[in-house]
């Protein structure tokens, strides 16, 4: 019973204190709320930027884990190409790999300049997070069309006059000196520095256009495999393909996604910088709150002495001062997290920071929880010293104070 009334009494005391000193509390908590908002926002920003970076990396090198398989020698004949295709398809089936694509580079020109044209299979779009500004990515139906189909970049499309794709526009290509009109079915988003024609054609169309996908290079094969056990699976795929080829043929297989570039976390430096900024912000917040709470306790010495003379134990005084600090900072933490969430939703900010991000996730829960935990921790740290000072107050001296 004494425990319940003790807790209720401490809460009532803390609430009375917050109410009576609301201006002081408000001023001290503004600092905490701003610190928590900055901290939460920084953590959330770090996570979202990482997501953004991940997507950019995945667009260029494929989603983790992407394995790229190639041969040392150029494909000389269609029979060689068919053998390699069949060996790769067999390996994919054996190891239950759902996402695969052949990749070739087509030596093409368009709009009077070199075009960066890749021959790929339909899975490539999902494996590389290809973003479309208009139209659609390749599907199985496109393989049945009588004309080659192409997905071009925005820059190229704009130079065609940005025709509606429902009107079945075509793009003129010159491949190995021969001209061909390809049906445009989709438009990829262009980055700010794209100033050349680029696009994708279906791998089989590319092979036809360039007569066996260009005679001077071997095709590549990509597979999107689980990260767990990826290294073993890469070697297994390589061996499986190797086994299908004539003796002496060399097959190379390696992971080419960004996570395979090294053991070090590619975002480590960014995380350290962001973490350091957040820590500095937090330390400043704690110091300013500690300063205010210490000054406040010095001003409350007589009150603490009076309370002690009317039966407040040292433990009760300690708990009440701590509770005031923790309750205050917890409220400030809620406000700070709310500010961070709102700041992250400013459209202009989103456009500036996360341009091109496909899956912009909601505000990271982890960042919000961290903000709240930190605010309570800040309250406990900032309340500890004043609480110890309050406990050491001698009732006799305090009453005379």
């Amino acid at each position, binding site marked *: 019973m004494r425990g319940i009334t003790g807790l209720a009494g401490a809460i009532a005391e803390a609430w009375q204190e917050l109410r009576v000193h609301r201006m002081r509390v408000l001023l001290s908590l503004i600092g905490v709320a701003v610190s928590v908002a900055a901290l939460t926002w920084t953590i959330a920003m770090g996570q979202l930027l990482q997501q953004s970076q991940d997507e950019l990396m995945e667009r260029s090198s494929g989603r983790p884990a992407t394995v790229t398989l190639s041969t040392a020698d150029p494909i000389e004949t269609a029979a060689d190409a068919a053998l390699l295709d069949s060996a790769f398809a067999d390996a994919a089936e054996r190891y239950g790999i759902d996402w695969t694509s052949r990749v070739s580079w087509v030596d093409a020109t368009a709009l009077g300049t070199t075009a960066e044209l890749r021959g790929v299979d339909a899975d490539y779009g999902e494996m590389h997070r290809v973003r479309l500004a208009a139209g659609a990515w390749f599907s199985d139906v496109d393989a049945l069309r009588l004309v080659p189909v192409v997905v071009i970049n925005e820059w190229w499309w704009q130079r065609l006059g940005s025709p509606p794709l429902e009107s079945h526009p075509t793009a003129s290509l010159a491949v190995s000196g021969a001209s061909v009109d390809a049906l445009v079915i989709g438009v990829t988003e262009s980055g700010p520095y794209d100033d050349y024609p680029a696009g994708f054609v279906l791998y089989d169309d590319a092979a036809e256009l360039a007569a066996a996908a260009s005679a001077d290079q071997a095709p590549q094969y990509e597979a999107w495999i689980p990260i767990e056990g990826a290294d073993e699976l890469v070697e297994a795929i390589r061996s499986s393909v190797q086994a299908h080829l004539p003796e002496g043929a060399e097959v190379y297989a390696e992971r080419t996604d960004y996570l395979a570039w090294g053991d070090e976390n590619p975002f480590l430096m960014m995380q350290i910088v962001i973490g350091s900024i957040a820590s500095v912000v937090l330390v400043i917040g704690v110091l300013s709150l500690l300063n205010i709470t210490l000054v406040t306790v010095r001003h409350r010495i*007589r009150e603490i002495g*009076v309370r002690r*003379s009317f*039966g407040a134990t040292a433990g009760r005084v300690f708990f009440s001062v701590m509770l005031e600090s923790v309750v205050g900072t917890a409220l400030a933490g809620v406000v700070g997290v709310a500010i961070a969430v709102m700041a992250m939703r400013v459209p202009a900010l989103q456009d500036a920071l996360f341009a091109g991000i496909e899956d912009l996730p909601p505000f990271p829960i982890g960042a919000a929880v961290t903000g709240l935990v930190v605010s309570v921790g800040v309250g406990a740290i900032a309340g500890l010293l004043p609480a110890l000072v309050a406990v050491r107050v001698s009732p006799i001296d305090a009453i005379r104070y």
Partner: protein
Amino acid sequence: MLLEARGITRTVDIVDAEPLRILRGVDLAVDAGEHVSIMGRSGSGKSTLLNILGMLDAPTDGELLFDGAPVARMRRGARDRMRGRNVGFVFQQFNLLARRTARENVAMPLLYASGPGFWHRAALAGSMLERVGLGERVDQLPERLSGGEQQRVAIARALIREPRLILADEPTGALDVETGGAVMDLLDDIAHRAGAALVTITHDPHVAARAGRAYRLDGGVLAEVAPEIVR
């Protein structure tokens, strides 16, 4: 016996000097419902004695018993709780909590109580303020009250937990003669009705003369004086 001091001595160490002996072998016994006054000049050790009797301070030597139990053997928390339950203080400078209403000031000691006293503290504080004649001013801040009214709030605060001992340190020291007399009438009356013992420390002979027993503290030595001499 409610309160008994046996050979209380209080010494304070002073750097590069002989220790200062504030109290020298003080003996005092106070029974329930008694009114005892202690007179003395400034610096005679009156407040130190009051702090020891109120268990806020500990004697250097000697023994204090409350209800027959030695206070020194109690743990600190238990002593604090016993003080809250059994002792009410009235200070010369009132020591009301600033920016809290009269009701909140009077209810404050009940924050450290348990049971109905804790849960009904606001209503009990209102009733106590009625008893001291401040029923109309329960929601006033101390800064808006006169000196006499502030001391009446302090008396209400001292009595809210129905203590068995009231310790009043110069209760009229900050008041004019007329207001001081009215405050002492009230304190006497309420303490008497409640059956609480009242120990008043004062340098005012008129206040001291109200007590059933009077003592003089001089040079740290406590001696009983006849009431007629005080008067």
